[in-house]
């Protein structure tokens, strides 16, 4: 397999101009596995590997593409629970199973080579290693297809979860802050976006007015949209809608962050199929076109970003995306940013100025009609909060809205362009999709 380091694909600088492949790359398929809370450690048919194969098959089937036609595989080869996932992300030292489940690959990790072997791909010529998360992968695949590195490319995002304390294993479970961690994480874990975003969120409330619980209408709406997403966790596991009272009385995870402000780790996999706009015309699904992609990884001034930094970062993300797509805020119909923690979403909403929302306006916007059938169908996917921590709902909903196949989630406003992302204020990536090539 090739290393992703060999391919200069990122659009991660200001002022790059309109993307050279705007409208020439298309998404022609997607597939979702079932979304379980966690793998039971027994049934290999519901393992991360089996679910990933299922997602790939669905994506190819949707477009009418065969295994022989796929010549690119971009698969995130790290675990969503990260290096400190502990028993929630590592199967070892428990014994492995018969091939292809005879290592961590197929159980807790997936990479392109494992998929090539397990599914029998024969014509793959682009299968990078060290692949980033879905927020950047979607851009990587877009650029690879646009540049001709491959023609028909599967993008796979596995999100595994085993029994155990998610992201609270390894050094995060240590009773001591050893070495450099005594300076950076003296309380145990300061790496999570819960902790990182609380400070600027509190600054936001002080600067613009309002209080944390003003997020309630947004979080509740995410749950409503999730219950309209037929493949998602909430819909399939009978997660009941929450009320304002449920929200306001719920337990603090990290004051003022409440339990409903946090997404739910799940065991699932998603796949997307990218190809050239030209080839897409011969496929059986309705294509949506990539109008731009961008990535960002802004440097922290200190270990703790403040509101000024977060607003500057999200302003720059928006400028890059609008410039590369040749569009402006008024042109974006569907807006699916990121909500792994509800406290970061307002920064994206205001940075991108969707539906005219400016700095400090988000809480008032949330208090209005943001339902999918209303005039401001914000985050129509339901995101992670409404579907589980797949990080893929934003992309699938955007594709469905542009195709007009979102079912009960279909918006009633115009749906010709969509912005979607997996991103935090400091790092991640965005994708702009269009119903039409230009």
């Amino acid at each position, binding site marked *: 397999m090739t290393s992703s380091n060999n391919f200069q694909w990122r659009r991660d600088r200001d002022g790059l101009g309109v993307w050279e492949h705007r409208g020439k790359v298309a998404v022609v398929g997607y597939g979702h596995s079932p979304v379980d*809370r*966690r793998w*039971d450690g027994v049934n290999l048919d519901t393992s991360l590997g089996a679910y990933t194969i299922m997602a790939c098959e669905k994506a190819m089937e949707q477009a009418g593409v065969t295994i022989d036609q796929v010549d690119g595989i971009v698969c995130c080869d790290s675990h969503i629970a990260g290096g400190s996932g502990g028993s929630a992300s590592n199967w070892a030292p428990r014994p492995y199973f018969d091939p292809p489940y005879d290592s961590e690959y197929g159980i807790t990790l997936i990479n392109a080579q494992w998929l090539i072997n397990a599914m029998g791909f024969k014509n793959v010529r682009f299968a990078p290693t060290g692949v980033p998360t879905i927020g950047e992968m979607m851009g990587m695949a877009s650029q690879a297809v646009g540049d001709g590195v491959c023609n028909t490319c599967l993008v796979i995002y596995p999100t595994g979860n085993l*029994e155990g304390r998610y992201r609270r294993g390894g050094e995060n479970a240590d009773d001591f802050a050893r070495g450099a961690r005594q300076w950076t994480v003296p309380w145990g874990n300061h790496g999570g976006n819960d902790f990182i975003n609380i400070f600027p969120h509190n600054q936001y409330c002080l600067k613009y007015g309002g209080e944390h619980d003003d997020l309630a209408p947004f979080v509740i709406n995410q749950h409503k949209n999730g219950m309209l997403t037929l493949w998602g966790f909430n819909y399939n*596991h009978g997660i*009941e809608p*929450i*009320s304002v009272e*449920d929200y306001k*009385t*719920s*337990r*603090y995870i990290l004051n003022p962050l409440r*339990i409903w402000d946090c997404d739910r780790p799940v065991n699932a996999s998603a796949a997307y199929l990218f190809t050239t706009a030209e080839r897409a015309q011969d496929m059986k699904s309705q294509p949506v076109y990539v109008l731009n992609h961008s990535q960002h990884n802004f440097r922290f001034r200190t270990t703790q970003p403040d509101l000024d930094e977060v607003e500057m970062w999200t302003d720059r993300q928006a400028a890059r995306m609008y410039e590369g797509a040749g569009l402006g805020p008024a042109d974006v119909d569907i807006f699916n940013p990121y909500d792994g923690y509800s406290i970061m979403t307002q920064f994206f909403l205001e940075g991108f100025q969707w539906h005219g929302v400016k700095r400090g306006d988000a809480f008032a916007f949330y208090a209005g009609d943001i339902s999918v059938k209303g005039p401001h169908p914000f985050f129509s996917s339901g995101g992670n909060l409404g579907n589980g921590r797949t990080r893929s709902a934003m992309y699938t909903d955007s594709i469905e809205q542009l195709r007009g196949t979102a079912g009960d989630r279909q918006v009633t406003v115009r749906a010709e362009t969509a912005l979607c992302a997996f991103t935090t204020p400091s790092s991640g990536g965005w994708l702009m999709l269009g119903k039409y090539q230009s």
Partner: protein
Amino acid sequence: MTTLISFDIDGTLEVGDPPGCITLDMVRAAKASGCIIGSCSDRTVSNQQRIWETAGIAMEFTVLKHQLDAVKEQFPAEDYYHIGDTDLDRQYAERNGFHFLLPDVDVVQLWENGN
């Protein structure tokens, strides 16, 4: 005076996600023996109440995980127990003067031994 038992749901009760080893019959048996019983979970109160309605078990209380203090205030009892599967259950139980029990073989034996 009597004994009060608070049940966590997920990872503790057989109807939890993941299922735990405490069966609904064990809950019924505790109630039949005169214990004050209820649930204490991160699930919404309405969801907890629906579980007990479906099971046909009348609970004395259904509260959120961080509200065990209110349970103790409301229900005088000789002994207070909270059965749960996480460190968080232990933290809230011990903070509020409850005996903490993990849902494991030892707890099941308490029922089998008629305790």
